[in-house]
């Protein structure tokens, strides 16, 4: 096998992409099934949340915005589990939107991961649309999700909560909120 080696890589290499900034992080405590990013600054155009979730018990991963429940969320998703036909699923007028756990509950043994983008989150004239890419693989089982969510509110997004329907995030769970600037 012929190889081309890219050597000498360090963490400080290269120019920074200054339009993508870390806002805040959170970790699981082992005693709570919810984490909240609050007081989100309005100085960005879009938000991205990246997370690795390890629940204490089999559960589902959800997201709410600004502490709002009611019937403010809808979700559409393409879901695969590696065996059954691809499932297209939708939920309307929900009290939360779901990020992962459509075919089955989250894995309690392997990392469940997600990347969620919230577009134009400071708008006060438009409802908010989210897109999510999430999944877990457990070497013989798994779930892959391409999801779209709608938050029926024209208020700017100032807080985001990520939660489990039941159980707690273990201390291995990691969440990071990023802001994406426009020119």
């Amino acid at each position, binding site marked *: *096998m*012929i*190889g*081309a*080696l*890219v*050597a*000498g*890589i*360090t*963490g400080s*290499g*290269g*120019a*920074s*992409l*200054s339009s*993508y*900034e*870390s*806002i*805040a*992080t959170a970790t699981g405590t082992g005693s709570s099934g919810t984490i909240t990013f609050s*007081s989100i*600054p309005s*100085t960005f155009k879009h938000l991205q949340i*990246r*997370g*690795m979730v390890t629940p204490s018990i089999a559960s589902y991963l959800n997201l709410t915005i600004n502490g709002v429940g009611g019937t403010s969320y809808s979700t559409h998703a*393409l*879901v*695969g*589990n*590696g*065996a*059954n*036909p*691809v499932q297209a699923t939708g939920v309307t007028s929900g009290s939360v939107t779901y990020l992962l756990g459509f075919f089955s509950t989250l894995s309690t043994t*392997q*990392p*469940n*991961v997600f*990347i969620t983008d919230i577009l134009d989150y400071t708008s006060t004239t438009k409802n908010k649309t989210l897109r999510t*890419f*999430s*999944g*877990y*693989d*457990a*070497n*013989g*089982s*798994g*779930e*892959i999700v*391409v999801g779209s969510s709608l938050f029926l509110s024209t208020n700017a997004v100032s807080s985001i909560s990520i939660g489990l329907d039941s159980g707690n995030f273990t201390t*291995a769970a*990691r969440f*990071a909120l*990023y802001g994406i600037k426009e020119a």
Partner: protein
Amino acid sequence: MPAGATYEPIATTSPNGVNSYSFTSISGSYTDLRLVIQAVTSTGGSGVTVQFNSDTGTNYSQTDLHGNGTTAASNRTSSDDRWYLSGVTAEGVTSTPALFIVDIMSYSGSTNKTGLITASQDKNGSGKVSRRVALWRNTSAITSITVFTTGTVTGTTATLYGIKAA
């Protein structure tokens, strides 16, 4: 709150005339890694795969969701020796560029490693779009990534990014 720029290119390579290339000595100073590959090969139907830390054991698995313009399906592999970027049911990489994006979450953490893979391969009348989640059952930090193709790389560019958290 904001901690400044957090999405940094670590290294870029434009390999030519080879069938593997590596990113080595990856530091642990980021939270996640993102590998972006525009893959082109000189021989048709080539697969693109990755291994971490030179691990050739059967510690890799993945679950995918894909469509080829006619049908959609979901497949998986288990106890395999690599992640497949070009598909569990492979869509070969040819002289038409294919785009692969691999997000590796908590790559330096002490859990097993899970990644999200995006594959975009359109060939004007054929092709495939895929999303997949992949597991590497190893709790070691990822310090090297080797990309393999079954054909000779010609015109490929690959960039590894690091994403920091506050």
